[in-house]
């Protein structure tokens, strides 16, 4: 009964769709299509209707139409979404129209189809496979035991469908080719917490050098993920595990630890101290130019801070946070 009760009255759906065929177009343009569809209609259904009834040359990837194959990620009104599970109604209510564009951070091949080879290469770079541990061979003829609690440690990472919506939304991917991206790091987390994997230490050591600390902690990946994998939270977990397992080895982790220590000491940052602890006394010389620029523009940042009021309370908070938790073990 409830299905019949859902709003079924068609609404006018004005689409503006990014079109670009490198064989014919000098530059991209936006094609307008107006359809009348029920508000719960998924964007993918609308785009396929355009293909079937208006313009068969509209080009996009799609397959399962049930949010499990990861083919149809694209920008819907500037957000990375799966077209198959995004209904048109709320988009029209909020934006008055539906602007469809290809995913970001990946070169456009044609219309909404992007070249995903860089995305797959970054995924491959984290060694996404079980590495056997010679000292702990797999049991012969039977499965490895794994408790439900151990399965829970994977969190939502097994739900990842590699749609690249997170990769498209990520500013660190755009800024730095060294950053593996949210999907690859969530996948790395999945292997780091796997009790069957023999390369935990090595994975954590390597990722500290290979981009873990380049995450900007903006959480746009978690917002974009259609399967609730929460990559930014798993990246946070990886940082914690990396510091605990292999120590404070890289500028990224040194910065994080120094930051915390600064706050505990005075309740606010000592920028000079922070830079020295992050880069070390020698590499600090390389930062002199940057320091001078800051000193010229914002001299107050370079003053030695006085301890803030309520510092004791802050330190108590720190002590409480440092109690070893179930998560980080």
């Amino acid at each position: 009964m409830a299905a019949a009760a859902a709003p079924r009255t068609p609404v006018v759906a004005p689409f503006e769709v990014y079109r670009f065929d490198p064989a014919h177009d000098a530059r991209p343009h936006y094609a307008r299509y107006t359809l009348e569809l029920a508000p719960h209609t998924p964007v993918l259904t609308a785009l396929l209707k355009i293909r079937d009834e208006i313009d068969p040359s509209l080009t996009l990837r799609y397959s399962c139409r049930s949010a499990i194959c990861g083919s149809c990620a694209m920008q819907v009104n500037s957000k990375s979404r799966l077209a198959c599970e995004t209904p048109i109604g709320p988009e029209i209510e909020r934006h008055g129209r539906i602007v469809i564009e290809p995913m970001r951070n990946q070169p456009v091949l044609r219309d909404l189809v992007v070249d995903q080879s860089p995305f797959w290469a970054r995924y491959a770079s984290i060694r996404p496979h079980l590495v056997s541990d010679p000292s702990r061979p797999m049991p012969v003829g039977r499965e490895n035991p794994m408790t439900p609690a151990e399965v829970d440690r994977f969190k939502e990472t097994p739900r990842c469908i590699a749609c690249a919506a997170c990769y498209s939304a990520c500013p660190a991917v755009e800024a730095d080719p060294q950053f593996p991206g949210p999907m690859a790091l969530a996948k790395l987390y999945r292997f780091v917490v796997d009790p069957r994997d023999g390369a935990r230490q090595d994975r954590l050591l390597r990722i500290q050098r290979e981009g873990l600390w380049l995450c900007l902690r903006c959480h746009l990946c978690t917002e974009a993920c259609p399967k609730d994998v929460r990559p930014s939270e798993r990246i946070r977990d990886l940082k914690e595990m990396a510091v605990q397992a292999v120590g404070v080895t890289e500028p990224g982790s040194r910065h994080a630890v120094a930051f915390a220590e600064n706050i505990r000491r005075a309740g606010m940052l000592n920028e000079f101290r922070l830079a020295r602890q992050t880069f070390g006394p020698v590499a600090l010389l390389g930062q002199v130019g940057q320091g001078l620029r800051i000193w010229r523009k914002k001299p107050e940042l370079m003053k030695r801070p006085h301890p803030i009021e309520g510092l004791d309370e802050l330190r108590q908070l720190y002590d409480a946070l440092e109690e070893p938790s179930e998560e980080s073990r």
Partner: protein
Amino acid sequence: MHRHDVVVVGAGLAGQRAALAAVEAGRDVAILSKLHPLRSHSGAAQGGINAAVGPEDSVDTHIYDTVKGSDYLGDQDAIEFFCQEAGPTVVEMEHFGTIFSRAPDGSLARRPFGGAGFPRTIYAADRTGLALLQALWEHLATRRFTLYEEWDVTRLIVRGGRVQGVVAFDRKTGSFDLFAAQAVVIATGPAGRIYARTTNAHSCTGDGVAIAYEAGAQLKDMEFVQFHPTALVESGILITEGARGEGGILKNKNGERFMSRYAPHVLELASRDVVSRAIVTEIQEGRGFPGGYVHLELMHLGREKIESRLQEICDYSRRFAGIDPVVEPIPVLPAQHYMMGGIGTDRRGATNIAGLFAAGEAACVSIHGANRLGGNSLLETLVFGKQAGLAAAEYAAKAPAPELVQSDLEEAEAPLRASAARADGEEPQKLRAEMQATMDRYVGIYRNEADLLEGVKRIRALKARFARVRIVDQSRVYNLNVTDTLETGHMLELAEVIVVGAYARTESRGAHARTDYPRRDDANWMKHTIAIRSPEGPQLSYAPVAYTRWEPKERVY
């Protein structure tokens, strides 16, 4: 021209497992696929994978359940082999890294499934296919092979009774190319898009089965089409049998748990054909909800169980139907789900053509016979994918070098060039829509002679019109109109085989239900349908079913 020992067409679980076996046997292997391997339709399988492990269950019970589920059309020697391989196959996938759901003692968790005498379906929440696909791909990716991604296969080249290779279309560049190979493994999965109402992905268009048929391969038992009892009403999106395995119940508009009339012993966990027919009968007799559907109720299971074990279908119901299964029933209706038929193979994947192998849903061994049990298809992809890969590797090692010629390429390309040059004619999507409507209406769950005759007539008329199909898009880059045209042509070939086979089979068995012949007819029809292509359409012949230990009995649940 590309050159490999073994070319695997399709990169789902069967194709990947075949490729892994052939690589491990030392052959030079290529995988050719329309989709990135992680986007394959295997990933959409929800419920689980059957294996009789543990002291309480037995391989024999699994064999018996599969034989009975097949309505005695499955080949019992193949089924015995299949069920014996189940345990080692699941363990291997666990060792490759599959994240299965677990019991409190740390062993693999198992849930009850339809038609099974014991809870033997091992699962990963309700995304078992995705869990297996990820683990197998991640394992395979550590090996040496060549992946041709987003290529449409257009033709299988057979000369002198042997496979020489395939022709394929590269979406990225718009060019056709030859792939010479001693052995070809077809693992292109289902062709569910022949129907409008299907749980299958848009890409499930039977390409590999069609090119094999066009090249002279025998298709087996194509008239047996499984309709899954529970799909969302509007979209046809699958609601896993696991929902009933976890305790979900079906009700009609009068609030009756109607399965008690059709399968008094096991109710909702009867075999899929039985439950699908029950739902259609309820609706036809006026006990469906307005608009024609029934309810699947999960509410009594409680939020915790629904949201943890049925997480994906919870999402699907909320997102695609606006229904929260924690507090309200899910409106459901059967939809095309699985093809029991396919390229006829032996249990090593070999076909009637030397060098041609097939596995997974594209193949028909046959272990599913007239009706497949839930949880047996994921197992089939892995067990027979491996067998086909091994057999293809063995064959390729001793077969003569393949010979392809330029005219193989030109002949494959010519009809598409003609379609692109045509100023009039019909677009493929129009023909596809008419084919889908025809199959839904005339070749559905309940069939009869008049409908099937009409179906044959209509599909043949569509095939005639397809000769003048027109490609509108003129771009060389990622031209999906070429793909649409290829797929529609492939599906029309297979649709004809399905409807001709269904018309000829004057009995009801498993998923093939004839209202004019409502009984199983073992005296005349305990045999496989074999279809061979001819210019006049499929030529049918029949082959015996292999028996070992199980005498046919009436199938009661």
